[in-house]
């Protein structure tokens, strides 16, 4: 019997992610920068991941494909599309069934998700039409410091006395941070203040869905260690790390959905 592969493709606002799983677990994954056309991003990210799997030559060799992310409905060759909220919940649950609460910080929005016992969504909340606290916000902030995102995160961890950054709006926060730098404040303290402000915003979102341990962070910003530290401080509990790159969680959840849907068709 030929081995079956299932794929999930998460078309976000800044990157395209693809994950291929089989009946045992994760086989391969890929993350690429977004193209202008969401469908092209999907095609490229899937091509990239398919290259890594011997026995797969093109997208049609995959038994079932589920699309997710903001560009999900543009992936014409996907058999199904599922919201990124459900996919992040299922992806995190697949990695660790003890996860009950998720903060998904993507490129253009932040979501708080409460997860059911079976990995489905119990409750969710999203930020409103605003880039504050998203990947784009961090990109803008690190640009002011002339740092890469990783370095921005690292310097925030060195702060001994974080400053208060009050502006929530990305544009106003930029102005405030430039003023703080002009006043010769330590970049580390300003960066830590930014992390704390975003953590507080995430905390507010989580309060709306209910905070139940274990808590994890997904999305590209989950790689920002400074933010995780600030969030742990405000939550007063540890963030559970995931066994898989947290940026892949939407694509992974989509792949798990693909496997489930393929199985239901076989029944």
């Amino acid at each position, binding site marked *: 019997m030929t081995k079956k592969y299932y794929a999930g493709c998460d078309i976000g606002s800044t990157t395209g992610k693809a994950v291929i799983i089989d009946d045992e677990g994760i086989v391969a994954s890929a993350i690429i920068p977004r193209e202008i056309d969401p469908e092209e991003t999907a095609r490229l990210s899937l091509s990239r991941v398919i290259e890594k799997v011997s026995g797969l030559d093109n997208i049609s060799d995959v038994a079932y494909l589920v699309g997710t992310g*903001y560009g999900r*409905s543009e992936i014409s060759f996907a058999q199904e599309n*599922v*919201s*990124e*909220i*459900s996919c992040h919940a299922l992806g995190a649950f697949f990695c660790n069934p003890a996860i009950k609460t998720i903060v998904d910080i993507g490129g253009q*929005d932040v979501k708080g998700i409460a997860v059911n016992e079976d990995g*489905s*969504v*119990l*409750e*969710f909340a*999203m930020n*409103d*039409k605003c880039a504050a606290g998203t990947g784009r916000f961090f990109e803008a902030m690190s640009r002011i410091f002339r740092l890469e995102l990783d370095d921005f995160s690292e310097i925030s961890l060195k702060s001994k006395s974080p400053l208060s950054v009050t502006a929530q709006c990305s544009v106003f926060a930029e102005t405030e941070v430039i003023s703080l730098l002009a006043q010769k404040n330590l970049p580390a303290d300003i960066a830590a203040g930014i992390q704390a402000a975003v953590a507080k915003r995430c905390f507010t979102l989580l309060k709306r869905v209910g905070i139940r341990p274990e808590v994890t962070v997904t999305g590209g910003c989950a790689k920002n260690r400074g933010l995780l530290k600030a969030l742990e401080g405000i939550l007063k509990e540890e963030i559970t790390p995931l066994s898989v790159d947290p940026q892949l969680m939407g694509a992974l959840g989509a792949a798990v959905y693909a496997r489930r849907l393929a199985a239901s068709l076989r029944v």
Partner: protein
Amino acid sequence: MRVLLKMNNLQEYLAGLLDDPCNEVVEQAVAYGMIPLGYTCSLIPEPVLSAGRLFPLRLRAPGVSGTETADIYLSSVICSYTRSLLELALDSKYDFLKGWVFAASCDHLRRLYDNLGYLNKPEFSFILDVPHKNNEAAMEWLELELEKLRTALSSHFNIDMSDEVISTSIKENNIMLAELRSIGDMRKEAMPLFTGTEFHRLMMALQAAPRKLLSDIPGRFRDAALKRGGAGKFRARFMIVGGELDDPAYTGVIESMGGRVVADRYCTGSFPGLEPISESGKPLAAIALYILEKNRCPRMMEEFDRRADYIINIAREYSADGIIIQTIKFCDTWGVESSLLVAALRDAGIPVLRLEREYRTGGEGQLRTRVQAFIESMKK
């Protein structure tokens, strides 16, 4: 009028009536010598504004793209519905109106009344004071207020507004409401013959043009729906609840994700908007009783349980799988109500999605994600 036998053609016609505050039917009515009066709240009694040559128009702000001028005059915590109306008023989009009738229903719309008064004073302007409680004294007060409205309209427009005229207006209005109610009831079917968006468009068109000139439209809608024989598949049945919602495109986004809106309880919707006014007794007393008893606006005090039960009962009667509560940002009345409602509806075992929005439909991507995730969370 064009041949409107098919639902698509009818919907196109209705959508056209919603493109501009002054549509072709309004122009036709004005040419016939009818008098258009704008109003902004469900507490305003349409039969009073329909007496004789008068006709009411529920004010909307179609095509508003920004509220830069209105923002100069209104505080930052005034809702975008109020803001949008003032913007279009200052753009002279409502200059065809012969008068505005307001209700002192919320502080936001009161500010619109104030600002219009000194920025673009209407020919006729009246604000109806509505009590916050439903008791004998409130009833007496409201009757007096309605009497003032009758006198003001009658003397300004030189129109006979006797009890007989208003009673006739109530009767005519009730006939249209009954017809719309019977169409709305068709949504109880397991596979409704029309979408929630189509019904929403019908409801809005009949509030955006004189009903007397559109009296055949409900019948055409019913015939077209029966003839078509179905409105397609869906994943979940929804009831929409909240304040002002006059853009069918919003319902359209919800339905594009697999929802089917089968019931609605919002200011411009069918519940409680299509309930009849009593035809017995003095007409103004019947209208006052209707406002205090039937309107079920969250601004009324001490009636939350009654309002929540009303929504729960409709959701069950129309087999809604879930309820979407939508409120315009900064709407105090519905903002407070919806917080309590979420808990009450969940206690009743009904899944709830709460959405805050701006008046103008936008952010469709986020709305789609929310609705799709809501449907998925219900395992539909």
